[in-house]
């Protein structure tokens, strides 16, 4: 079985800057839950951009769920991202003018593959199930404007959105940094449980090492990024 994420001989530099990323071999198995620790400036955003397919590496290959996305065109990479990846960001993850349910089903609007993987094509039902699983079962949550939700609730809605349509890979970029300690653990437990249920691979990026113990494996970005070693 191929890996969920496999980056080989990957290099990237912003124009006229020294190399920012130089990853020889970084592999995450399917279903694995990996904590990637990267302080700001370590090339974290760039790596996520490369994995998400919005940036093109200068050289090397990125394989996601068995597909090498590097030779794909920009729009094919966009489509691939929509079909196979779910993203959760730090905060204000939601489209402010859409309701909770519409935010959750958004990926299915852009990706037919994600919509097809929703049981019986019942997008709303699946969205409600995910919200319920993430502890947002209360009836009135779904009908409230997203701007009225607490940050913790917003992050769970974002997690439900990332999980909708069973993408193979969930990438979470500092999703807990604006939550307090209790909410952080709660959120992570729910997220991991749901990733487990769906068989999704989780790449969790944060600078907060305290969370590392909850994951299968912790990787320091500095360990895999040779560009940083040279600079250091």
């Amino acid at each position, binding site marked *: 079985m191929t890996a969920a994420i496999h980056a080989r001989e990957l290099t990237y530099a912003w124009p006229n800057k020294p190399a920012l990323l130089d990853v020889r071999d970084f592999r995450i198995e399917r279903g694995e839950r990996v904590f990637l620790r990267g302080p700001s400036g370590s090339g974290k*955003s760039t790596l*996520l*951009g490369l994995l*998400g397919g*919005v*940036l093109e590496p200068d050289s090397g290959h990125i394989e996601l769920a068995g597909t090498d996305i590097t030779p794909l065109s*920009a*729009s094919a990479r*966009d*489509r691939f*991202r*929509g*079909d196979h990846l779910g*993203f959760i*960001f*730090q905060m*204000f*993850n*939601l*489209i*402010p*003018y*859409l309701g909770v349910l*519409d935010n959750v089903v*958004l*990926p299915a*609007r*852009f*990706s037919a593959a*994600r919509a097809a993987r929703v049981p019986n094509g019942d997008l709303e039902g699946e969205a409600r199930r995910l919200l319920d699983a993430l502890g947002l079962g209360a009836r009135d949550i779904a009908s409230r404007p997203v701007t009225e939700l607490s940050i913790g609730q917003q992050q769970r809605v974002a997690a439900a*959105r990332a999980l909708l349509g069973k993408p193979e890979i969930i990438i979470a970029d500092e999703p807990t940094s604006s939550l307090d300690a209790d909410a952080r653990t709660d959120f992570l437990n729910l997220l991991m449980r749901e990733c487990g249920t769906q068989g999704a691979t989780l790449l969790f990026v944060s600078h907060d090492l305290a969370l590392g113990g909850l994951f299968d494996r912790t990787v320091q970005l500095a360990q895999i990024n040779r560009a940083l070693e040279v600079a250091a």
Partner: protein
Amino acid sequence: MIFSLALRSLGNRRSTALLTVAAIAVSVALLLGVQKMRTAARESFANTVSGVDLIVGARSGQLNLLLYSVFRVGDATANVSWESYQKIARHPDVAWTIPISLGDSHRGFRVLGTTNDYFRHYHYAGERALVFTEGKPFAALYDVVLGADVARALGYRLGSEVVVAHGLGNVSFALHKDKPFRVVGILAPTGTPVDRTVHVPLEAITAIHQDFQGASQPAIGARIGASAAREQVDLTPQSITAFMVGMRSKVMTFTMQRAINEYRSEPLLAIIPGVALTQLWNLVGIADTALMVIAGFVVLAGLLGMLTAILTSLNERRREMAILRSVGARPRHIFTLLVTEAGLLAASGVLAGVALCYGLLFAAAPLLERHYGLVLPLTGLSTQDAALLGAIVVAGLFMGSWPAWRAYRNTLSDGLTLRV
């Protein structure tokens, strides 16, 4: 998909969107209003006089003659002698003539001396003849027939007494008080200068001026009473201001025009009303083109307002764009989203503007007709109007593609990075 996103995004910024739509709506209403007004004005202008083949007056300018004879604007520089008038009126090719004698006024309305032929032969708006809502044409010397506006504005009914002022001032101190007229007829509204005219028999003009020497009042004791004036044997005027001619055969019109213009015993000018009206319209039309240009610029201002609103929102929406991209939106989706928003704003603005314009026209049409004789037909949108409105929406889309392009560039550089 993108369309519903665009709708909801605008709904989220409701007040800005509504103001933008309102600005476009007002500008579109103005443009459409000007367009309607100028069509109506042009039509009502061309409809002022019809059925008249020639208008003859003393030699001056073509426009001058048209203005004072038809629009009652300005003054004749000279008169036409009665002999010349009779000579032309009796010409075998001439079917009928309407003599016109101007110079007096009644409370701001022009007094026009003429004969009953006026009511018989004067036509407007194609085939429409003058109609009496009340009363009948002249029967006696001091009878007066009022245009619709005059009767309405001054509250005159049949039998009311009318005193004519000498000269044209709104408030004249030289009144023909000793010779009051009696209203015998009131005409139906025509939307032409006829509505604002006080018609009296041609002979009455002679009668009331008998003791006037020039423009000054006669000396006390030198006045001639109304009945004495009536008893005067000959009230045939020595001259008239102008006259209108109907030919037996239209074919003869040009021959007659040339003959009159070359008339040797008196310098006369004959004009063909249609030709002169077109010439006058071309002159007046400059103002109306200017109005149209101004209205066009107002629409441009409305669209620029929209552009400003969209551009200022772009920075706060970079996060939104990154989120959309993270769920699979391509940069061209972002571009389409913003162009769609601009298109929706422009289209709603145009629709609201059309509604506003028709609402205003509906409300204002009776007023305009009453006060200015401008008939605004509540017609649907002409193809020209529709093309104009379509062009505004297209312009909106075109302008929207600028912020859309910027968002496209932003989203390419931001990628999945959430910027505040």
